[in-house]
Structures are given as C-alpha cells and as structure tokens.
C-alpha cells in the first residue's frame, strides 16, 4: 500500500478516536444546557425548595456546595503543598519515603465511597463531630490530598536540579531556593493539581453522603457543626428518591452544578496561565 494512503488512514483513525472521546461529552453537556436552561431562573438559584422540593429553588444546595468546596480548599491546600515540598525537596530517598509515595499514588485511585465510609467512621463517629460541615470538609480534604500531592510533586521535580544548585552557590539556603526559584516555576503545575482535586471534591456525592449532606434543609448553616444540602447529593436525591419530580428541576440542578464546576475550572485556568506567563526558561 502507498505510504501516503497509509498515513491518511492513520490520520483518519486518530481523528475518529478524538471524536469518539469528545462527542459524548459534548452531547451530555449540550443536553444538560438545553434542558436545564428551561428550569433555571433567578428564583431557581435564589429560593429555597418547597412543596416536596418540586417547587422553589436550590439555593441552600448551591451555598452548601460552595461552603464545602471552600472548606476543602482551606483544609487541603496548605497541608498538601507543604507536605509536597517536604516530600519532593527535603525527604531523603529511603524505603520509607518510597512507600509513602506509593501509598499516595494509590490513595488517589481509591473509590470515593471508601473515603465516605472512612469519614463516617473517623470524623462523624470516632471524633464525635456528628454529621456536620466539619466532618464533610475533612473527608473531602482527605480525598483531595493525594491528587494535590502527586500532581504537585511532579511539578516540583520538573524544575531542573541546576536551579537549586545555582541558588545554593549564590549563598542561598535550601528554603530560599525553593521559595524564590522552585515554587514560582512549579506554580502552574501545583495549581493544576489543586484544581483537579477540588473539582473532584465539588462534584462527588459519596464522601458527603454519610458525613454532611442533608436530604432537605431549607435554612442555611450557622456553624461548622451544622449539616448542609449539597448539589451533587441533592441531584441524586431528586433523581432517585423523590417520586414525581419534574425532569426540568433535575436538569436545572445538573446545569447549575456543571456551571459551578466549569467556572471554577475557568478561574483556575486564568490563574495558571498568569503564572505560566511569568515563567521564562
């Protein structure tokens, strides 16, 4: 066969694969946008649900998801980034650190329901936090940490060793090299890790199922020991637990969750490209 024909066939195959990957996502997003747009209104995003949740809005669930996401960020980013810096820059290469690394990579792949059950056992019951924002946030943070750590560690390791040597040769302490050279260079990668982790936390149902999510709770929380409604769980509830729920409400809820997650993604991408522009090597 002519090698150019072969090449064209190869390209065609690759294009088909790319389409097969993207098309279902576009269909899903498109469907949610078209169907969900019918339900979404100012009232839908600003009112509390009533009438067996078939009427009113989903305001408490939106607030709940925002609180959980911000809380997860607060709990996981400092620990995750600090831990990563230790692992990548300070820890010596021993069987111990290798085991820790292996564990982190594996933890990133554990099903979220396992984290949910761990959170129930550890925070809700053993530490007596009850079903609360605190327990939910900590559970989500534990699920997020491995993602943040494994992605950030890659980013730190991608910064050439020579920069650290040069910094040291100019009288810098190890920390100064990390602070002024390594971290700024690794920032886009670290932010990517944080985004990936937080997006997963924002959209998951299983970890919050037993630890924080309320079936129906029209008032907003007043303390970290209150429960909240959350969008992913609310979506699950109205799709499976409430008979006769109008489809439009389900689509509307899905659309709001989608927009929330996509806009977080967008903000993060802007931050990341800001840091990337400042990088020069």
């Amino acid at each position, binding site marked *: 066969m002519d090698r150019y024909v072969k090449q064209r066939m190869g390209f065609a195959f690759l294009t088909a694969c790319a389409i097969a990957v993207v098309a279902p996502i576009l269909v899903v997003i498109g469907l949610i946008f078209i169907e969900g747009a019918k339900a979404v209104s100012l009232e839908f995003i600003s009112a509390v649900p009533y009438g067996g949740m078939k009427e009113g809005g989903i305001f408490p669930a939106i607030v709940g998801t925002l609180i959980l996401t911000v809380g997860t960020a607060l709990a996981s980013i400092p620990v995750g980034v600090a831990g990563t810096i230790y692992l990548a820059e300070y820890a010596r290469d021993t069987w111990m650190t290798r085991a820790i690394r292996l564990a982190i990579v594996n933890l990133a792949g554990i099903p979220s329901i396992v984290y949910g059950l761990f959170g129930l056992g550890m925070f809700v019951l053993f530490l007596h936090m009850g079903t609360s924002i605190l327990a939910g946030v900590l559970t989500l943070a534990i699920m997020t940490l491995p993602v943040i750590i494994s992605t950030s560690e890659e980013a730190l390791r991608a910064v050439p060793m020579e920069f650290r040597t040069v910094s040291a040769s100019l009288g*810098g302490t190890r920390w100064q090299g990390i602070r002024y050279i390594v971290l700024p260079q690794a920032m886009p990668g670290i932010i990517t890790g944080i985004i990936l982790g937080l997006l997963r936390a924002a959209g998951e149902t299983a970890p919050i199922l037993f630890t924080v999510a309320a079936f129906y709770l029209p008032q907003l929380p007043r303390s970290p020991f209150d429960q909240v409604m959350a969008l992913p769980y609310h979506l699950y509830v109205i799709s499976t637990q409430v008979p006769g729920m109008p489809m439009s409400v389900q689509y509307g809820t899905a659309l709001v969750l989608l927009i929330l997650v996509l806009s977080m993604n967008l903000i993060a991408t802007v931050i990341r490209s800001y840091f990337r522009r400042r990088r020069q090597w």
Partner: protein
Amino acid sequence: MVEKKVSAENINYFYGGNQALRDVSLGVPAHSVTVFFGPAGGGKTTLLRLINRLNDMVENTRMTGRILLDNKNIYDEDVDVAILRRRVGMVFALPLPLPGTIRENVTYGLKLAGMRDGHRIAEILEKSLVQAAIWDEIKDRLDSPASSLSGGQQQRLCIARSLALEPEVLLLDEPTSGLDPISTRKVEDSLQELKQLYTIIIVPHSIQQAARVADQAAFFLMGDLIEYRPGTEIFTTPRDKRTEDYITGRFG
C-alpha cells in the same frame, strides 16, 4: 612563603565506592589564577566543588581531609555554608541564568543575603556587569529576560552574578566550554582584571586555555594530583612523564 588563600590538605573523596580524589594537598595563593587541568574523571571539578561545599548536596558521598579558607577549615561544624558560598563564588560549565530578568539574575544573591539598599544594589549591579565585560552590551535592557541573551552573554551574566556578592574566591568550572572564541577571549581577558581583586581557580576547557591564563597549574589524573607548579614552567618543562604526555597530546 606566600600566604595561601585556599589550602586542601590530604583530601580523599568518594562517590559511593569510587574514589574521586586520592590524598590531594595543594595551596592556592591569593590574587592569582590557579588552573586545575587534566583528562575527564581526574577529580578537578570535584575538588573545585569541595571548595564551596556544593558537593554537600550530593547524596552518598564521603570526604576525609581539610580544606582551609584563610586558615579556617570550611568543613568545621560552626561554618555557615550560605556565608561560605558568598565568600567563594562559582560559575558553572553551562551558562544557567535563573528565570527572570538580567537585573534579577545579578541581584539574586544580594536579595538572598538580605540587602535592601536600592542605591547600593544599583551600584553593585553596574560594577559586576562591567567587571564581567558585558555592561556595554546590555546596559539598555537590564529588565529583559536573561534567557534572551546569547550563550556567551549568558555566561558573562553568570560571572557577573557571582561577582555581585564580591566573593574572595571565584571558582570557574569550564566557564567557556559552550562559548565561541570571541566570547572566550572576553572572559579570559576579564579574568586577568579580576585576579587583582579576587583569588581565581579555574578548570579550563582546553590545555591552550590553561596555558594562557595560569599563574600556577595543577595536573590531575584519575584522582591523583600529579604535578603542581607555576604555569610558566609546567606547560614548557613538565617534570612528570604523564603531564608531558597529556600536554603534548599523547593521551586525553
């Protein structure tokens, strides 16, 4: 006898099980250019890196012996490594500008040392770039990225970056290996100026360069110091057969 700025005493150095230096002792006089030369793997770069303790960062290595700077062992417990490295600067084989502008590169070491005085920093910036023979070429674009410079300019920038700390000793590890002859010439010329102010130790990238810049030269072979004598003698009348073979190009 002339006062030695840097002295190595009975240095043995191991990377894992491999011995890179074998009982090496030598003294480097102040305000002169000392050359470490010899074939690859001879230990010259290792010795250079021991003088500002950069090899501390390499795991699984071992050293015996002492290295004295102004008669003080730099491997003593009470030595602050960061301050030592300010006194003993290093320029690497590959020009490696840090991310950021030309100005940021030259003043990086000052920032690390905690200098805040803007006037003083500006003074040092200009003085270092002049000493490294690059000021005229880049004085109008100090805030462009350092990576936009040519290879030869980058290497002189790296020299300026070390000079900004006003070190007492300047270590240069094949500083011209990636440079064209004209840039090489500029760097070599500036060494002759710089030795008035600093003590310079250089691993040259060729024997010709060694002969051009050396006040005294040390020949290293497989971890042994073979011969260490004034440059005017060692390159014309080497005493050791192995030095002669290397200089005349019979091996290496």
